[in-house]
């Protein structure tokens, strides 16, 4: 039996969604470790891009910021935001982007801006950053978030970044470059989207949870297919590699 923490599990799970040869917006934190892990295992030719301007980065230490100099040495080019978010992302050249979410609705639309009403917000969250740009234009979007029932809502307090908006045809209406969210990874499950209705659907349940656990912990309608597999566990090799990548546990230690 492989022993793993929740964070290790999520990183390995996210890593499996990166394919070889892809251009990946890694950001920081778990997505960055997931992208690096993918590059060390099944996707050696994936191209890790930071929106601050680093292209094909191979950091020897894990960066804390998308603009961290740790992204620099050994990367292929060091440019700026117009290059990464304009030429590469809006140009349709980014295969996969990762985003977090404070709230998510059943079409995969994302709130990272405000909790409470816009005119008198209870909490000012970080905002879009490059998130809306990535959600609009990356070919595929992977959403990672902690599983708290109040975050999975029918109606967002504020829609920062587009998922599938109001369903079929609505991304096309705005001529969006990318295809929208593909998968949502939480502490409890993976969810994807029904190709017909663009509505959120249970994809796999993490070890230790049941389908009912998931249904008890979302406030929107969730499509449940007849057959819901268990999410695969990480291998010892994956865990070893991620600890080599983050030897000081800057990200890995958080979940323990």
């Amino acid at each position, binding site marked *: 039996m492989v022993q793993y923490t929740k964070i290790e599990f999520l990183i390995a799970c996210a890593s499996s969604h990166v394919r070889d040869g892809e251009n990946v917006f890694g950001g*920081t*934190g778990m997505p960055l470790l997931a992208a690096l892990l993918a590059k060390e295992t099944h996707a050696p030719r994936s191209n890790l891009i*930071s*929106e*601050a*301007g*680093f292209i094909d980065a191979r950091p*020897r230490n894990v960066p*804390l*910021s*998308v*603009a*961290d*100099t*740790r*992204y*620099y*040495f050994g990367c292929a080019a*060091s*440019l*700026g*935001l*117009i290059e990464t*978010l*304009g030429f590469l*992302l*809006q140009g349709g050249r980014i295969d996969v982007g990762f985003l977090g979410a404070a709230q998510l609705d059943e079409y995969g*639309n994302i709130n990272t*801006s405000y909790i409470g009403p*816009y005119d*008198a*917000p209870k*909490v*000012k*969250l*970080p*905002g*879009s*950053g*490059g*998130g*809306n*740009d990535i*959600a*609009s*234009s990356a070919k595929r979007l992977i959403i990672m978030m902690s599983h708290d029932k109040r975050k999975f809502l029918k109606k967002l307090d*504020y*829609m*920062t*970044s*587009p998922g599938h*908006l109001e369903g079929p045809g*609505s*991304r096309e*209406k*705005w*001529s*969006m*470059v990318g295809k929208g969210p593909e998968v949502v990874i939480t502490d409890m499950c993976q969810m994807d989207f029904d190709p017909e209705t663009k509505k959120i659907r249970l994809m796999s349940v993490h070890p230790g949870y049941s389908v009912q656990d998931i249904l008890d912990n979302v406030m929107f309608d969730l499509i449940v297919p007849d057959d819901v597999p268990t999410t695969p566990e990480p291998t010892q090799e994956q865990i070893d590699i991620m600890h080599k990548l983050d030897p000081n546990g*800057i990200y890995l230690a958080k979940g323990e």
Partner: protein
Amino acid sequence: MTEAEIEDKRITLEEAVKLVSDGDGLFWGGFGYQRPPIAFAHELVRQKKRNLTIYTCGSEVDLEIMAGAGVASRFEIAFSAIEALGLSNNIRRRVSEGALQVEDYTNLAMAMRFLGGALNVPFMPIRSMMGTDMVNLARYRGENKLKVIDCPFTGQKICLVPSLQPEFSIVHVQRVDKSGNAQIDGIVGEDIEGSRCGKKLIILAEELIDETEIRTHPDQTKIPATYVDHIVVLPYIAHPMMCHDYYDYDLEHLMMFHKLTKTEEGWREYLDNHILGVEDHFGYLDLVGWERLNKLRATRPWGY
């Protein structure tokens, strides 16, 4: 070629900040942890500037300082947080109090707004933001936050974001000659466009170099002197953040800062000790301590 006497654009940090008037708009350089002009934010606080509007993609500690001290009342930004540490506590409080208005854009939208300002055209087209509340909701900019139009060539929807030409651009670089030719190492973020969009440009640099060094490597010049109005040369301008090839971030200080800002009292303590309690930037550096600063110095070839 006759050698003309070169204009020396160097002034002190205090003099540079005095040029800023209450109510001015400032393009704010740096990106994330990289090259934020923190020393300039400190001096804005010490000189008690008020009602500034700050335009940037997403600075972190500096935005927290300017929001916390009441220097800025408006932000047009894409992002506020301390990456890897957590939410921007001061900004969160000031927004809840109604003391700070944030007009929300995306990183690309802000970068394009600076590009449009640099090009001296009134707007730039962009393909994100549409379909979301970033288009539907606006604060003080109202109708002029952005416009979604039908493209006159394709008929498709396209979003126009208004260009920016604020009173000042504040940009932190690694090296500059005394006339203003500036070199930036590592990523440039939005600073190429940002340095060209302001009506006046103030360059903050870690190191002064001779004109000969500039003219021997013209392809290293990221900002030519013709854009530059004033120069301030000081060490550790970005502390506790980083400056590529010069010094790393000070994680301990950063965590202390972030922890203190969780309460208004904590923030006041930081403000009183580290900003108002010192005379100038060297006073701040003395307080941080030179042994500690020296430990942050970058190692070649890594640059941190």
